């Protein structure tokens, strides 16, 4: 998989969380993900089409997303509810949009769909393409989240 298609989404995650929620993120070591298991409690996946086709997913641990949403909306949330799921969807929209804008500047034109949000322990994420899935873990002061990107032939 072309790393040039991945890096803009990682930069976007950092930029969106800092700008909208004032949260600093620290990327860990990227790895190839082999299974569909989400390593977190709530996730969103969004389809991408254009010069490449695939999907981007964000997977948050509960502690991490509750911290992020509390600073995003200025209100504290003790558990994952509809407001938190809605915020995960809109963060995904913004990160995907910011990543696509960075890619457009490099001449890659991409469009995105509407995010699907899933929550619950041990839920799974099904990417839209058969290609390899690159996962990048991130750390924040609130806890961990993961960005997954997969491009390839559609299922």
């Amino acid at each position, binding site marked *: 998989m072309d790393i040039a298609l991945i890096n803009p989404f990682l930069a976007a995650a950092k*930029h969106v969380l800092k*700008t909208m929620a004032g949260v600093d993120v620290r990327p860990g070591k990227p790895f190839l993900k082999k299974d569909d298991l989400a390593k977190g409690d709530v996730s969103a996946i969004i389809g991408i089409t254009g010069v490449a086709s695939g999907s981007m997913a964000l997977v948050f641990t509960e502690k991490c997303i509750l911290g992020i949403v509390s600073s995003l909306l200025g209100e504290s949330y003790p558990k994952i509810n509809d407001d938190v799921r809605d915020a995960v969807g*809109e963060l995904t929209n913004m990160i995907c*949009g910011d990543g696509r804008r960075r890619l*457009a500047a490099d001449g890659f034109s991409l469009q*995105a769909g509407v995010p699907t949000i899933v929550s619950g322990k041990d839920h799974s994420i099904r990417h839209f393409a058969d290609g390899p899935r690159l996962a990048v873990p991130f750390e924040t002061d609130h806890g961990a989240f993961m960005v997954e990107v997969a491009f390839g032939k559609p299922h």
Partner: protein
Amino acid sequence: MAYKDMVVLVVDDFSTMRRIVKSVLRDLQFKEIVEAENGAEALAMLKSVKVDLIVSDWNMPVMTGLEFLKKVRADEQFKSIPFIMVTAEAQKDNIIEAVKAKVSNYVVKPFTPASLAEKIAKVISQS
């Protein structure tokens, strides 16, 4: 007209973003804020409430912000309402399309409260 006497219509399919925009508006002393989840709902809202400023998302189901903008600008009664697009769709072509459709200003998501506040003040002072 003072901000506190103006009616603002906030349009976004995600309640999170409507809340963020509303909080910026309240900090600016706007008091009357109405909401819609897509362009079609927003158009219906315009027909029942007299709106002085529109802050709308682009990417929404049912009717997008761009289609909504075109309908507003084509309507004799609504065409001069200041219209700010707040959107993650910010590739060059998108901005050109929105400008052609006579958007008043454009805010790219993600944004800081200060940058949205500044664009709101600017379009109102120009209207």
